[in-house]
């Protein structure tokens, strides 16, 4: 699969690059950001997949998070894909900010007109890692996944649906229980139709109830004053209760912070690398 390099910038002795490729799953051109630490020039490095939240592209994490220094220090490759297929000209895809473009919800849609292109789950699960492995010095034995908000939901479900694939998962203000919150209901309704069992297959709180083992390290950070928390969009308590019952190890931290989007501006790198060296 041919990759086209869109940009390349030196950063903390490594390179922050953006590539574009023709995605088979999504049937359109997709971009992703990839940070290659200095260690990548010498050998294979573990890979961290970052999933962004609603309305984001591959750029937000690159420009807003400040993760590069930590990634360079710890020798981590960080891949940041886009949040949905783009330019597919599907009717209605740009009507709302929380559904369609920029809001793929990391599912494989089954309903028209989304099911051809909106297959972010398979893209993140299979196509992207294969691409990364084929083109970059990636240690495929060591992968972890993390994300923010909708990306946090994506990270959690990808880890829970693929036991053993990721060494650890962490999420910032994730949507933990989409079938119960307005965002989830809207998105799942649109992408998956009205069959609730299909919804549950993409809901972290449900998935955790049947997670086969407990060899998963989950770290969740949530801003206390996050408006979406109080609006009932995130529902971390449900997830924690399910994990406690199922004895899945989770450390959940409620941080003194308000704005959700730029919550962990510089902290992302630091917080992440606090737990990710496990890989």
């Amino acid at each position, binding site marked *: 699969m041919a990759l086209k390099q869109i940009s390349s910038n030196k950063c903390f002795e490594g390179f922050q690059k953006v590539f574009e490729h023709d995605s088979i799953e999504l049937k359109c051109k997709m971009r992703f950001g990839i940070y290659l630490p200095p260690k990548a020039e010498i050998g294979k490095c573990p890979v961290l997949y970052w999933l962004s939240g609603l309305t984001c592209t591959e750029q937000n994490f690159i420009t807003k998070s400040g993760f590069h220094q930590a990634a360079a220090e710890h020798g981590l490759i960080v891949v940041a894909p886009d949040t949905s297929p783009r330019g597919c000209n599907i009717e209605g895809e740009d009507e709302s900010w929380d559904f369609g473009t920029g809001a793929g919800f990391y599912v494989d849609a089954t309903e028209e007109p989304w099911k051809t292109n909106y297959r972010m789950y398979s893209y993140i699960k299979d196509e992207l890692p294969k691409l990364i492995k084929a083109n970059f010095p990636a240690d495929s034995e060591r992968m972890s996944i993390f994300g923010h908000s909708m990306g946090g939901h994506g990270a959690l479900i990808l880890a829970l649906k693929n036991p053993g694939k990721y060494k650890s998962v962490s999420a910032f203000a994730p949507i933990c229980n989409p079938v119960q919150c307005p965002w989830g209901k809207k998105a799942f309704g649109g992408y998956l139709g009205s069959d609730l069992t299909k919804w549950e297959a993409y809901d972290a709180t449900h998935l955790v109830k049947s997670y086969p083992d*407990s060899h998963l390290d989950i770290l969740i950070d949530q801003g206390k004053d996050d408006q979406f928390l109080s609006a009932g969009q995130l529902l971390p308590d449900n997830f924690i209760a399910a994990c*406690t019952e199922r004895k899945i190890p989770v*450390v959940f931290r409620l941080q003194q912070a308000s704005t959700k989007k730029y919550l962990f501006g510089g902290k992302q790198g630091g917080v992440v690398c606090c*737990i990710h060296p496990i890989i």
Partner: protein
Amino acid sequence: QSQEAGRELPSCLTFYHMDLYESKGRLEIFPEEPAGREDGALGETSKESTEPGEDFCSSDRSAYDLEKEVDELTKLYGLDEDKEIDQKLLGGNIATAGILERSYGSIYNAPKSSSPVNGSQRKEHMETTEEQELPGKDSQDESQHLHNAKAYDELHNHASSKEELRSDDRQAEQSIQPNSEEEAADIYCATCKIPIRAFDKLFGDHKDHEVTQLANAVESAKEEIQKNMCKLEEQVTEMENFAGHLEEIFITVEENFGRQEQNFEMHYNEVMQTLTQRYEEKVEGLGEEKKQKLEALYGQLVSCGENLDTCKELMETIQELCKDKEKADFIKAAVPVVDRLREFLKKDMDLVLSTSPDFEDRVIDFSDVQQLMDSINTIAAPSAPVINPQAPNSATGTSVRVCWGLFSDDTVEFYQLYYKQVSDDTPSEAQAAPSPPIIKRKESRSCENAALVCWESGNMNPVDSYTVELSKLTNGENGDIITESIVGIPNCEALIQLEPGQSYVISVRAVNMGGPSERSEPVSIHTTGTYFYLNEDTAHPLLSVLEDGLTIACSEIENLECDLSFRDNGFTRCIAILGTMIPFQGKHYWEVEVDENMEYRVGVAFENTHRHGYLGANSSSWCMRHIVTPARHKYEFLHSGTTPDIRITIPPKRIGILLDYNNWKLSFFNLDIAQHLYTFNSHFQHYVHPCFALEKPGVLRIHNGIAMPTSITLL
């Protein structure tokens, strides 16, 4: 970046290819027919072209070698090189064509075309040409051109030869730039060091050459690049080191310069002072001499004057006398005068100059100045160094470490160390050697890199110093061979640096004038981890330490009012106890084992943390706290009374605690699942000690002296 090419053009624009010589399906600047022809004209890198000259020429050319003429003319007008000009010319093509036509007209017998070519007529031709030629655009085949340009026979001669030239060029170009129409290179010719097609290997120039798979070649090229990258990196490091070294040398040069400058100044000042002094002395001497001479001369002058007066007076007297006629009076007066005269004449008139007008030569003695000047270049001898008093831990049984201080003004080439044994051969009988000290075992603490050993003097009388003897146990040797001894210890404790992962046997001797005592009972120290002991003096009355020294228990809290005997240094509210840990940098690790239902606080605190306070409620303590509420397990990480809001889904039973002074961190782990729980980031300003508290009756076990498990070293 050729991204733009992929973008859609707004529909109102037609694509006009700028390259006159390249596009065969050349569009007129004023197109008669629109977009239909566009497809023909498009083609970014298509090298097919027609010479504009062809467009201009009419059909009525007689056979003539126009090539040269056209070449010259195109060069003249810069038509073949400058595309910009071409465009302009094409815009004014009719005029130019006219020029060409006319010039051709004179050469040819082409009456029909003698008049300035009818634009429309030409256009017709051109259009015809183009339409005919369009289908043949993609073809490299000369014959096609010949076909299409049938009407222009003579034209063809040079047109085709032009075409030949062009197509030759094109072919050459094409072979250099592989088209997407051709196969891509898929193997690698090692002999020529270029990628080639497999086809070429079999049938082409590379028949006999060494080939490998392109992928392999790429791999090995990459490997080599990576190797060289490493070398480059090494070089970079070397150069950076060198640059750093150079910077240091810069500073040294400056310092040395300063010192030399000072030296010179000092010496030259000395010399100048001496010279001035000498000069002044001599000048003074000269002055003295003058004074003396003048005085002498003046004296002479005065006495001369006196004599002169006397002479004159005598003469006057005699003359007066001789005037006197009376003989008797004359004789009376004359006799004394004669006597006086006689006397006076006897007197010695000193008419010789008493002093010479010349001055003696004075020479300044420069000999010692010369010496001074010669000594300028010699370096002054350095001052005597000052030897530091012997530090503890600076001697072994057979060696001693001596340190001394250097004066920064001195230049030193080397030192000479002299020593002489001063121990008395005859032991003083007056004093007996002291008794051996007693090591306080329970109070020994250690970590991977050091141990702190304390002891009691064991003597009524004061001793001069203590000597600690270490024996490193390797390969199961016994502890009799002393590997290191530390002398001159003034107090009853010693902080000893050790190697990690070893076992030592340590004993102490007391020393006085009578000599050293016997060795004390030894204590074993293992540098496998951090050992601390629980300081029972700090324990809350309700907290007791069990026999193993590392398990604490809280008894039933019955009646808080009565009978609680608080210790002076003990906690009064928080049922807590402090450990006493070695005051040493680096990492310290220990573990705590609890029951799921235990309510506890574990962490670290300063030695002077508030005994009336609760662990974590003040700024001198940090701890993890667990309590059980009806709803769930509640976890807090307390410092200065605040905690982040944390939920932990699996209550830890074995907790690992890591204190990292270097990175200013205190971390907690759930060891059973190798899960990181929380880390305090705090720049500890003083050494801290482990602290433990129980909030309700129960038991808490401590494990120390162990290494951190690898499962959490990476966390």
